[in-house]
């Protein structure tokens, strides 16, 4: 008995202490919770802002009936951007909203958005664009002509093939301005471009068959599209060479970058200061640039290319991304197969 009294007291004390601690913890949690509640994260605050802004949008939409046409598009632009802002706001508030409130807000926004699009199609009919197009079309000459033609092309889905051909020719003529040197659609010809024509300009070679082209000078960019069985010799190109859809041809050029797409069986005598990439191409052979002409060193300087840096034999293939094995789509042309003299 004697020994039980102190332990009983101890028990009581312990129970009391535990109870105090427990209450303390509860109190503490309460406080923490209180601190966490930010005014702006309360439902009422959100509702207040969100629905008052919805009301503003609604008012704008209602006002469209009485506003002059010229101001309509401005209003609709405002409505659009306001809706986007609200969407973001709603999305960001997701964490503290209850499912029901979230859904209600979403529905409200959806209805507004639908109303806006309906009103917009009703009040600003697409006609406006059509009219604009036609006007531009009639005044011709303008360069915007090109796309407008294209648009018309696409809208009218049933076009005869020869019609398309005509359109294409017209497009090419329209699209390439005075500052582009072009050689288009030649067969079995020997063609030469001089420095005064090409220096600092873009050069386009397109749809050539069995032609030999020599370009003495430094184009800014060189485009070669749809060449078959051609030999093309070019001076140093300041920026990139873009090759697309070329077959059974050989090229010699110096450049900063080369991007070669959908081509087969081409040999490139290359001087490249940065990197070359190929994509969707096979049977590509490379060798160092070996075409020379009188003014070439000056042209290297003019193009800003370093004649001493040449990465001709490191090519990246977008269809072959493993590093362990070299791409089967390109290889170095064996020295005895290389062209020794271009004359």
């Amino acid at each position, binding site marked *: 008995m004697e020994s039980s009294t102190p332990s009983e007291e101890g028990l009581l004390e312990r129970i009391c202490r535990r109870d105090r601690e427990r209450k303390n913890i509860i109190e503490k949690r309460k406080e923490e919770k209180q601190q966490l509640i*930010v*005014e*702006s*994260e309360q439902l009422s*605050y959100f509702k207040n*802002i969100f629905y008052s802004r919805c009301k503003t949008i609604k008012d704008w939409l209602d006002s469209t009936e009485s506003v002059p046409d010229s101001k309509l598009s401005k209003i*609709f*632009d405002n409505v*659009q*951007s306001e809706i*986007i*802002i609200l*969407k*973001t*706001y709603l999305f*960001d*508030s997701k*964490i503290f909203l209850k499912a029901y409130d979230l859904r209600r807000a979403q529905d409200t926004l959806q209805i507004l958005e639908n109303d806006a699009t309906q009103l917009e199609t009703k009040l600003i009919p697409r006609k406006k*664009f059509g009219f604009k197009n036609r006007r531009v079309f009639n005044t011709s000459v303008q*360069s*915007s002509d*090109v*796309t407008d033609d*294209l648009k018309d092309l696409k809208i009218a889905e049933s076009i005869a093939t020869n019609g398309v051909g005509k359109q294409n020719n017209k497009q090419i003529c329209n*699209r*390439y*301005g005075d*500052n*582009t040197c072009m050689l288009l659609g030649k067969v079995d010809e020997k063609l030469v471009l001089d420095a005064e024509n090409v220096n*600092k*300009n*873009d050069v*386009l070679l397109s749809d050539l068959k069995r032609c030999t082209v020599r370009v003495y000078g430094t184009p*800014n*960019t060189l*485009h070669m*599209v749809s060449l078959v069985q051609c030999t093309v010799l070019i001076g140093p190109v300041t920026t*990139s060479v*873009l090759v697309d859809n070329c077959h059974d041809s050989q090229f010699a050029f110096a450049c*900063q*970058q080369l*991007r070669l*797409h959908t081509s087969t069986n081409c040999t490139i005598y290359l001087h490249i*200061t*940065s*990197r070359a*990439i190929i*994509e*969707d191409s096979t049977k590509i052979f490379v060798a160092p640039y070996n075409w020379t002409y009188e003014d070439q060193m000056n042209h290297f300087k003019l193009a*800003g290319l370093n004649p001493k840096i040449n990465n001709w034999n490191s090519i*990246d293939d*977008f*269809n072959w*991304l493993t590093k362990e094995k070299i791409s089967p789509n390109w290889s170095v042309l064996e020295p005895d197969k290389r062209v020794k003299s271009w004359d």
Partner: protein
Amino acid sequence: MGLLTILKKLKRKEKEMRILMLGLDNAGKTTIVKRLIGDPIDTISPTLGFNIKTLDHNGYKLNVWDVGGQKSLRTYWRNYFESTDGLIWVVDSADRRRLEDCKEEMHKLLQEERLEGATLLIFANKQDLPGAVPTKDIATILDLESIKTHHWKIYKASAITAENLLEGINWITNDISKRIFYKN
């Protein structure tokens, strides 16, 4: 200003923006990024995959994702859409041959649900070249007027002369901050 606190909390690292740089190959995306951060621009190679650069600009931290534009990479563009605040579309103004392609690819992007609400900045790049199509015409060809789903603006630009690069970045950061850091 209650919203500000929420958004800041959400953005954790405050005033951070994610900018996605896209465009056809050879448009000059990498060159623009390198120009902005002051790296040399004469040894740039075609981008295999992507580069990420961080820019500190007007107190904002811009994470710029520069993704390659080759055809085979375009299918991977969508992997970068998530939580993009701003989109920079780079156009090679001198490449008349592919402006129509450029328009199609851009409008395809704007349909993307995950890019909804992202601010769109268009750089009509390479305007230093004599053969460049004027910016106004590029806006017509790309049919920018029809874009209602995004805030957009086009700038006449050149990565070589650095013309308008900063102005463009200023505009896009301003527009984004108005949206996500919400000022009344």
